[in-house]
């Protein structure tokens, strides 16, 4: 009996909240995966019509074109402040601040810390790919020791410019946040864990519980000069030893 006549069920498809359009991200870029996971969470929680997404400056500056929710631009680094303004006006809407490593840990460090410190009831998604992708591959606050980038061509030298910053651990010194977790999207197992963390971070907002922070280690094949599968492997071999995966806080 031919296999084709067996009744079949669609068990995985594009989530409804993800726009049915091609995205501009490089082949193998983690943003596509993370957008998809966010869309799945928004579908699962039924919050597409009450969510507002604040996009950063960076490769994902057009994130609001890919997620079918109200979208807001923000100046570089200022997404948490913009998100604060939106959430204070509409406390019952779900506000997501989606940011990269330059946005969150360089220019936006003050907004990152103070939004967390005030315990703004938002969900911050931090896409950590250890590089500045959109501007062509410069060093990021999370670039690793000895990592070669356009502005650290001889490798990041800690004697000169210090070490990478661990955002989760930094925010874990603050009283207010209710959820802090680091995950990755370089393997199926890690992608599934990332989805769980994003669900928790969004459900916290639905339940009005406080500030949630999810850091996601993400591939930047173009910036790292690696093939996508090599980039996924580099996260395992080089990033995770410094940026450990796991939950730091879950109140």
């Amino acid at each position, binding site marked *: *009996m031919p*296999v084709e006549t*067996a*009744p*079949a*069920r*669609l*068990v*995985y*498809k*594009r*989530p409804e909240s*993800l726009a049915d359009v*091609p*995205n501009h*991200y*490089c*082949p*193998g*870029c*983690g*943003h*596509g*995966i993370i957008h*998809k996971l966010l869309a799945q969470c928004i579908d699962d929680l039924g919050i597409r019509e009450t969510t507002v997404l604040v996009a950063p400056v960076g490769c994902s500056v057009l994130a609001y074109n890919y997620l079918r929710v109200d979208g807001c631009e923000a100046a570089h680094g200022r997404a948490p402040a913009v998100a604060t303004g939106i959430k204070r006006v509409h406390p019952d809407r779900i506000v997501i601040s989606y940011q990269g490593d330059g946005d969150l840990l360089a220019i936006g460090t003050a907004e990152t810390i103070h939004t967390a410190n005030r315990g703004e009831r938002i969900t911050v998604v931090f896409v950590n790919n250890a590089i500045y992708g959109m501007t062509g591959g410069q060093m990021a606050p999370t670039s690793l020791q000895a990592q070669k980038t356009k502005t650290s061509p001889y490798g990041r030298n800690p004697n000169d410019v210090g070490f990478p910053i661990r955002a989760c651990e930094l925010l874990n010194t603050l009283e207010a946040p209710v959820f802090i977790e680091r995950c990755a999207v370089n*393997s*199926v197992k890690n*992608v*599934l864990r990332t989805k769980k963390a994003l669900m928790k971070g969004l459900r916290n907002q639905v339940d009005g519980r406080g500030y949630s922070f999810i850091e996601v280690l993400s591939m930047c*094949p173009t910036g790292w000069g690696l*093939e*996508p*599968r090599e980039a*996924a492997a580099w996260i395992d071999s080089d990033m995770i030893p410094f940026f450990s995966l796991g939950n730091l806080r879950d109140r």
Partner: protein
Amino acid sequence: MSRGRPEINRERCKGCTLCVGACPEKIIAMSKDQFNRQGLPFAVCFDESRCTACMSCAIICPDSAITVLRFAAASGE
């Protein structure tokens, strides 16, 4: 006995090969001598009979280019 199959949208596929690496059965490969309208090779499941419908390919795909069908169990199994 196949438990399902992936449907890969060749025009949405960017040829990133993450699905090739993710598939536990190793039944996905990039097309040879065939390219989509972007000029990129695309992923193809070359042996659907060994697909377990685990969804790994679809889960890892950054472009939501893959949907997965799971077959109902055949009678008697």
